[in-house]
């Protein structure tokens, strides 16, 4: 299963953390640990990493400790890191990261790091449409997008009734003009410079 989904930027600041197994230690140390493992690897190395060091963090204290692997992908300023056990196919997870990114991109229209900061709840909702309880729920971007839209609609409706002052609020993907700092990393992905 997938034990953790982490997104942090190139300076190691976590942008999204989700653990599917209870943590033994503080999540910050874990993120730092993974960050130091991942960021020291050159671009030409593979996207997989054996991580026996992480086992103490993820509650596998019994002696049949799982062999955890870190599968990561770097998109411009962000690292997408999945910690998985041997039951998952490494390349499959790599594909899944791509699906997750594409889903984020759909929902936010050219997603950038700031989207994940300001819309952390939305990012979590999207993640919950891709992975549930550490297991792959859906891999079809259309389907994920549809579910996300559906939830957004329901939220919008209930929100409108909750706050009479609001004039509909923002739909998915609307950002305040002042916050617009697109990083164009998604285009980077499409040209395939870094992404593998």
């Amino acid at each position, binding site marked *: 299963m997938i034990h953790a989904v982490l997104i942090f930027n190139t300076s190691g600041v976590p942008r999204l953390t989700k653990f599917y197994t209870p943590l033994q230690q503080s999540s910050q140390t874990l993120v730092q640990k993974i960050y130091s493992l991942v960021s020291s690897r050159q671009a030409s190395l593979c996207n*997989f990493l054996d991580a026996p060091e992480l086992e103490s963090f993820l509650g596998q204290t019994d002696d049949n400790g799982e062999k955890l692997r870190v599968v990561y992908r770097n998109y411009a300023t962000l690292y997408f890191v999945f910690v998985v056990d041997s039951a998952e196919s490494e390349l499959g997870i790599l594909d899944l990261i791509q699906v997750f990114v594409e889903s984020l991109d759909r929902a936010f229209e050219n997603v950038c790091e700031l989207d994940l900061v300001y819309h952390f709840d939305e990012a979590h909702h999207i993640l919950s449409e891709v992975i549930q309880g550490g297991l792959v729920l859906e891999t079809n971007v259309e389907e994920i997008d549809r579910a996300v839209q559906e939830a957004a609609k329901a939220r919008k409706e209930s929100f409108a009734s909750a706050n009479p002052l609001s004039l509909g609020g923002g739909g998915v993907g609307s950002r305040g003009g002042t916050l617009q700092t697109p990083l164009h990393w998604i285009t980077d992905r499409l040209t395939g410079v870094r992404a593998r």
Partner: protein
Amino acid sequence: MATSMRGLTQFIADIRGARVRELEEKRINKEMANIRKRFKDGNLDGYQKKKYVAKVIFTYILGYKVDIGHMEAVNLISSMKYSEKQIGYLAVTLLMHENSDFLRLVVNSIRKDLNENNEIYNCLALHAIANVGGQEMAEALAEDVHRLLISPTSENFVRKKAALTLLRLYRKHPEVIPAAEWASRIVSLMDDIDLGVVICVTSLVMALAQDHLEAYAVCYQKAVDRLNRLVIEHEYTATYAYYKVPSPWLQVKLLRLLQYYPPTEDPTLRNILFEVLQAIMNNCAEPTRNVQHNNAQHAVLFEAIGLAIHLDPNSPLVSTATVLLARFISSRETNVRYLGLDTMAYLAARADHLEAVKRHQGTIILSLRDKDISVRRRALDLLYSMCDVDNSDVIVGELLRYLKVADYGLREEMVLKIAILTEKYAGTYKWYVDTILELISAAGDHVGDEVWYRVVQIVTNTEDLQAYAARVVFEYLKSPSSHESLVKVGGYILGEYGHLIANDSGYSPIEQFQVLHSKSQFCMAPTRALLLSTYIKWVNVFPEIKEQLVNVFERYRHVLDVDLQQRACEFYALATRPAEDEVLQNVCEEIPPFPARESALQTRLSRKLTDAGDRRTWVHGGSVTLDRQATRRTTKPALGDIHGNGSAATSGIDGSNGANDITQSLMGLDLSSSPTALQAKTSFSELQSAPAQFLAEKGIPRLTTNHNVERWFEKLTYSSEGVLYEDVQIQVGIKSRFHGHIGQVAVYIGNKISAPLTSFTALLHTEEPDALSVSFAKIAPSIIAPRMQTQQLVNVECKKVFTKAPILSLSFLAGAHQSIAVRLPIVVTKFLEHVKLGQAEFFERWKLIGGPPRESQAIFPITLADSGFINTERQRQVVSGSCLNILDGIDPNPSNIVAAGILHMAEDGNVGCLMRLEPNKDAKLCRITVRSTSENVAAELQRLIQKPLSTDAVS
């Protein structure tokens, strides 16, 4: 939208604006204090609660510890507004874990949302259970989740979530889920049209099937069928193609699911599977430029290769795969190299001969020097798996050389592996000692105690080795710096066997002592203690250096360490006893050989490797470690066990029963009903009364029983076509053709209702797989259209005498999930062929075979025809329907029937059978005598022919 809450946006902006960590912390503390106060004051409306909880969540995401907001989150969950509910659920899933006390408070709200008629509420609830579901939730809500999963009214996206939620609950608390009972219902969902549902259900099935292999056996067929549809027939919706590869996740899952089962015996499934695997491999022959496409294709390919190896490590498919793998391990792409090595290690662990892998030994050894540690690890695993007697010299040598430059994290594992390989594939003891000592001196700190214990064990148990080992270890000790582990080995070996080399020049006692003692000062207390023991042994064998040794003891009597001090005192006392005393000699007797025991090294290594959760289907160096859980399971469920409870009855049918009847004289005509029929009935009903769960666990369908089913079956035992089963929904008809020991049965399945039967599954079970093989010519279609009929061919081969007809089980969804299991009319008489015999020949053979045990005789009551006469016509029909040739004019009594036939069996050859039927009109009884060259055949034939003729016959 979170940003619609202005307070929250401001909060986030403030934190982003904080230039230093202290400011950020200050801002957060201030906010938390404020929120705490607000919560305490109470009287918050939904919007405010939502806003504050959102702030708490954000703080949590930043990595701060938060201890407030739990109660408010619980309140938000039961809110009627979706936006509030959503934040509430988000908080619950992020802030709480499965053992949280607060969860008790939300169980009821979650149940309410599960039962709500609103799908997105259902989804929120499911998602929460899947993330934080603990014992209590599992017990309270498993049923509701299962209902959502199987309900025909559930939306696809609800079913997907329900499947995974159930999986999570099962993983955490398997005892809550009646996995075996739900098996057929859950597996039937693998036929769903929506691929998203199929992916999730497959994940669920994969977890359940691992623990309940037999109960979920149907999924094998489903998985093969689905792969066939995806890969060969390209039957999938366009949206599920990921960069032109049809749902790689599903393919990977299915391929892996198949690896949990032993390779299938069914030729049809096997062929399809090989075709699929071949197609997958062909697809990868031409790499494209698109990275994502390649990734996806390789993901599938690697699983496919894994499955191919699992099915048959020696098949041509695997040779193809080896060629591909060879290309991969020298690929420029690091990911591909990594996976290539990983998969090759699997091949090496499973294959019978390693030539194909060995051809690439050079490349693999080079991979040890790869710039990426992940690749290096895989190369190490592969070298470990592919090592055998022939290449152990090279590989171990190479590993030793690499050990000196290897990453620190890798060394301990390497040492273990080298030690195991050295021991396992040692050509000569000399090589073993050399290598291990080199290992110990090279790896130093990374040598676990197990390694040197093992050396000592082996040296002690191998007499030829002792002098040599002593000499080599002495040489190692002479080098200026030796590692402590080496000192330990040296101390032990020289103490025990130093005297063997003491007469050679350069190895004199005093030199041995000096070398060893010079190391003592760099060692820890336990090592020094070991050295003291060595010295006392030397006092015994080297009287010439006794003085120096006693000196050492003398000095150690004053050290602070208790253990050392005690040893020194005791040894000193022992050493200074008068020379004629024998205590010392007795104490220092040579150590006896160790009892042979398994190497502790492997236990250690396998402990490091075992997995929880989804089991890996193999381990590195598979032949080394016994822990091959999935593959070790026996091929077929032990069906014999089921009949254990009815064994008395079954054996009665086979043999003793005939003997019983014979002891009854023909005149004992008061037998109201034949014991055979009675016993057959008990065995039948006992099988049926076995606990449902037990049957389900074994994957044995529960036979559908009613008067009609038995009648239909019985009729078909002596005719070649007719109805096997019928109810309001379906009709099953049979047409059969037999030739020699081979037969073909066409099963016609008709849908009688005006809706399609979906998720249709047909399965065959044989209780005696050694004697009778049955298999479908192709996989049954998963849908039967309204008022349509489908035909399934069953290939049958009789190998030996069998007594149990195979079971055909059908299941389908028509509104609800239905399943039917009936016996197919394939009985031993079907494999009889006519034989023509004259009167003389017949009697000659009749006499030749003689009485019991090769004769089986029974007397049974019969019903007369309406005319009051014996129903000869019917009797003849049954006998000739059972493929016996009725021989007229042999028996003088015209109402008697005499018949003969030859039974064809693939393994047991041909068996001749003779039969005589003697009805008695007045007594309304009939005597049947069957003589055959095989006693089993006689009894079985007698039973089969008698059944439709006796009054117990159901027709």
